[in-house]
């Protein structure tokens, strides 16, 4: 939006141009009072007295401003003062003056551009159009004056807002599945294999490493068996992992059970071999709940909340000018842009944000987690933990529990803990936690908008613990502060961020600070920074080091020719003390085909010398591979790394490849077919449809020449929607038999779902109404077309001649009825009509359907 000042200047420029035109038009003055119809497009209109002035018309300002919803008043008879929005631009028109005042400017107007009569001020439509950036159409043949583009007026903006709100209300229902497939638990099913291999070319045995993991669906859960080299292949040490995970998403008390290797529950996760049990969801829904965004505007104001450019809520200020909008919020950042509209078209814009940290639970939700088992690291022999969480309100969550470690070489550790996390209003985030024998943590964050964020966190560590596990050894205190500030919202790439870290150890104190600026000009982004490091050792000297750095990112420039226009670059430079260069590097990168990318460059650092690097990265649907060549003072080394998955589908006896990792993921596969007989099943001979897009969760796939589609990397256990993109169907008469299918997938396997496409047809007919001269077509009659088997209903409205036409009617038997509300209003009765839509590849047409409305006796 332009600043008010610039808008005023533009208006004045337009006005001067218009004034010149009007002056020429008024050279032969002849005025007469007329009665005209004043219309603001199709939005509003009224009949008013006006004054004809040659081809122009002088409009009564009070009527025009009333219709347009522009705030105005008569300062004295013959003088109108109005406020133009947006920007609060003051307008003063004095019928007895040769100028008007617009904002801070006085603008000359022709003497006969204004008139006054009975206190009313009449003003030239041509000049008014220039002032308000609208266009008047004057038709003297039917005495009408019409604003062709009323959307620029407050009235037009208000009606557009109301339309958007109606649209919001209509869209809140979202896509609803008309078929739900619950989890199909198998005794044994599915098979996936994840693999990765690192192989240096000069020493595969002593430098290489591998991993492989097998996944299956066993008893409805995910069984995983893994083996990996713990260090280099040559050392022969391997690590094996096995686990079984079961998920029961509807069970209130036990929703997850893991046996074998895995991660503990609670806020300080660690790997252990044993079990874990929990009632927390396998994947937590993103939506936390509704949180009020409140503020103060003024009585009569309306405010709309937008997220991602989409209207999500709206409200009106109360008598005291306060507003409060409940906005559905999700985990993470919730920036909301507000647009407030005053009663006279004023517009204000501002934003607020609300951050939900991962520890917070929805209100009244209770979750627990228990885990115990053998430690998978040398730090402890075995470990257990209990974690309890409860959402006490929509902003606050309490958490408590205990972590226990049993050790051989040191005393056992017992850590009961308690924490609380939440928000004070929307801008302040508070976290406080105590872990006995470990740490007391306090964190505070202030984030009033997307342009400012300040957070600070203080940790006080216990000093009586030998070989601590949950905290860094020897650490006593740590205070970390981070800040982000964007001075001008419009320039999103310009911002400052910085951090300050104060650490007190047993052996001394460390201080590190960093301040950085980010700005971007066209394709070049630069991040200059300064870094300070201070190490004070109790028994030794203190060192202070200051570094200056500059990182740049250069996006491809279109004007550099065909090859170079796809090249991006990044550079780094860091100096110390008196601008002594410590390290520098420059790399160029370019895609060289579908999924293939090359990056090459030089890096230099003090003490290490110059290193040349060449990297080929390949990212395909089937495999992921990286080849690196590095050459420097110590020699040349090439390393290859490959990662992928093999997926076996026992139902089809097919093997597929994926870039992976695929363990504990799931997929959907099947055919898209034309359901010629309408039974919903893929029968022999039914046509398979290629080139149809199927959307599953957050991934999509096109069906191949055999009508097969396949999507992998879906979340198991949780429902995902399967939707056929009807825009990709070959015939506009075809329609998916199911608008959406909700499906729960088992782990490590494909679920087979064939998707029927109904060869729908067309119905044609008309609605007649008895009249003295015989039956006549009845316009605007709503008809319901109801499937007799499924109850699915469509509506159609008759045209002006009483005819109706509806495409996309799926095969089946239907009733056509006139809603009772219509027959009651018209005082008629109508006999329902029945028809059958047969399945036909080319689309069946049922015509001649006729409904007669007869008067009720």
């Amino acid at each position, binding site marked *: 939006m332009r600043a008010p000042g610039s808008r005023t200047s533009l208006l004045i420029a337009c006005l001067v141009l218009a004034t010149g035109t009007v002056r020429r038009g008024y050279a032969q003055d002849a005025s007469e009072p007329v009665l005209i119809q004043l219309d603001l497009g199709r939005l509003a209109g009224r009949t008013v007295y006006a004054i004809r002035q040659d081809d122009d018309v002088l409009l009564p300002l009070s009527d025009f401003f009333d219709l347009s919803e522009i705030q105005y008043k008569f300062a004295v008879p013959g003088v109108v003062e109005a406020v133009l929005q947006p920007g609060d631009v003051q307008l003063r028109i004095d019928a007895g003056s040769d100028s008007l005042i617009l904002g801070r400017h006085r603008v000359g107007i022709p003497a006969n551009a204004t008139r006054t009569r009975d206190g009313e001020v009449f003003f030239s439509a041509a000049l008014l159009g220039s002032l308000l950036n609208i266009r008047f159409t004057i038709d003297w043949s039917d005495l009408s004056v019409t604003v062709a583009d009323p959307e620029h007026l407050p009235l037009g903006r208000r009606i557009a807002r109301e339309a958007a709100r109606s649209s919001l209300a209509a869209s809140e229902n979202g896509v609803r599945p008309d078929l739900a497939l619950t989890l199909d638990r198998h005794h044994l099913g599915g098979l996936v294999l994840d693999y990765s291999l*690192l192989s240096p070319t000069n020493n595969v045995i002593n430098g290489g490493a591998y991993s492989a993991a097998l996944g299956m669906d066993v008893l409805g859960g995910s069984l995983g068996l893994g083996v990996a080299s713990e260090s280099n292949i040559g050392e022969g040490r391997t690590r094996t992992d096995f686990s079984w995970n079961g998920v029961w998403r509807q069970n209130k008390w036990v929703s997850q059970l893991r046996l074998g290797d895995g991660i503990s529950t609670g806020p300080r996760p660690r790997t252990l071999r044993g079990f874990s049990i929990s009632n927390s969801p396998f994947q937590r829904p993103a939506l936390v709940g509704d949180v009020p965004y409140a503020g103060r505007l003024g009585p009569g104001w309306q405010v709309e909340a937008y997220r991602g450019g989409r209207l999500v809520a709206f409200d009106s200020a109360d008598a005291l000018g306060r507003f409060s909008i409940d906005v559905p919020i999700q985990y993470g950042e919730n920036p909301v842009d507000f647009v407030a509209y005053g009663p006279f078209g004023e517009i204000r814009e501002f934003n607020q944000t609300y951050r939900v940290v*991962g520890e917070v639970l929805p209100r009244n939700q209770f979750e627990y987690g228990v885990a115990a088992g053998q430690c998978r690291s040398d730090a402890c022999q075995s470990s257990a933990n209990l974690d309890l969480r409860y959402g006490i309100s929509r902003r606050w969550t309490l958490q408590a529990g205990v972590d226990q470690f049993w050790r051989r070489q040191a005393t056992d550790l017992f850590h009961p803990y308690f924490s609380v996390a939440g928000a004070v209003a929307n801008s302040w985030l508070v976290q406080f936690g105590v872990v006995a024998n470990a740490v007391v943590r306090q964190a505070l964050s202030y984030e009033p908008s997307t342009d400012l964020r300040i957070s600070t966190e203080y940790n006080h560590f216990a000093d009586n613990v030998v070989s601590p596990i949950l905290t860094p050894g020897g650490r006593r205190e740590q205070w970390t502060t981070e800040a982000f500030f964007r001075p001008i919202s419009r320039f999103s790439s310009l911002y400052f961020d910085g951090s300050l870290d104060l650490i007190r150890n047993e052996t001394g104190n460390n201080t590190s600070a960093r301040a950085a600026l980010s700005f971007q000009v066209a394709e070049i982004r630069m991040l200059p920074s300064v870094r300070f490091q201070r190490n004070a050792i109790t028994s030794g000297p203190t060192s202070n080091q200051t570094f200056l750095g500059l990182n740049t990112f250069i996006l491809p420039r279109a004007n550099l020719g065909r090859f170079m226009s796809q090249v991006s670059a990044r550079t780094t430079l860091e100096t110390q003390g008196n601008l002594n260069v410590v390290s520098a590097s420059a790399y160029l990168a370019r895609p060289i085909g579908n999924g293939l990318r090359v990056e090459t460059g030089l890096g230099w650092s003090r003490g290490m010398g110059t290193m040349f690097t060449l990297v080929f990265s390949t990212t395909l649907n089937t495999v992921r591979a990286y080849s690196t060549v590095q050459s420097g003072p110590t020699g040349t080394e090439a390393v290859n790394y490959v990662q992928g998955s093999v997926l076996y589908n026992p139902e089809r006896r097919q093997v597929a490849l994926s870039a992976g990792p695929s363990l504990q993921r799931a997929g959907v596969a099947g055919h898209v077919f034309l359901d010629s007989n309408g039974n919903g099943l893929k029968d022999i001979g039914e046509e398979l449809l290629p080139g149809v897009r199927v959307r599953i969760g957050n991934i999509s796939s096109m069906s191949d020449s055999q009508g097969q589609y396949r999507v992998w990397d879906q979340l198991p256990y949780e429902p995902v929607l399967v939707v056929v993109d009807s825009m990709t169907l070959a015939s506009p008469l075809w329609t998916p038999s199911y608008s959406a299918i909700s499906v729960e997938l088992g782990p490590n396997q494909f679920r087979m779902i064939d998707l029927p496409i109904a060869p729908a047809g067309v119905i044609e007919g008309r609605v007649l109404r008895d009249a003295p001269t015989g039956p006549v077509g009845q316009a605007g009659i709503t008809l319901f077309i109801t499937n007799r088997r499924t109850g699915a209903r469509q509506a159609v409205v008759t045209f002006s001649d009483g005819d109706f036409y509806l495409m996309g009617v799926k095969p089946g038997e239907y009733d056509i009825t006139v809603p009772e509300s219509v027959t009651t209003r018209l005082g008629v009765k109508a006999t329902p009509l029945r028809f059958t839509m047969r399945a036909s590849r080319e689309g069946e047409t049922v015509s001649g359907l006729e409904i007669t409305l007869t008067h009720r006796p």
Partner: protein
Amino acid sequence: MKYLKTWAIAPLLAVALLSWPSPARAQLLATGIRNLSFGLVIPGVMTTVAPSDPVRSGQYEIQAALGTRLRLDFTLPTQLTGPSGASMPLNFQNNDALLIETGPGAVSQNQNPKSMKPYTMLYGNRLLLFLGGSVTPAANQATGAYANTVSLTVTII
């Protein structure tokens, strides 16, 4: 009606502080998976792709060890470039980034791609990052294919 064929290319990865990935030594692996694609756009009509869009959103994948704290930093272009040097404004909204881990208990999180907050791997070793955006072609926008590159830098902190 005139259509423009446009797309934006997301998958450019830049990985800092990387000890080259291996099952034993890997610290970080970042990969561009899917382009942010606006498809056909109509002159004068803004086209928006949400980060949750299953077809058109950009997608990155990051693999890092459990407990790793990451700084995610986008370098975002402000326009797409097309035939004969024509350009089309490209904009990213405050919640056009979506992060989700693949491990049990994970929760998807909205983020602002213009000021990403540090992220800690809490539910496993695999993080998916989705990116949305919007283009605003002018009413007289030249017909053709438009493209640009988005860069993501992932740093262990």
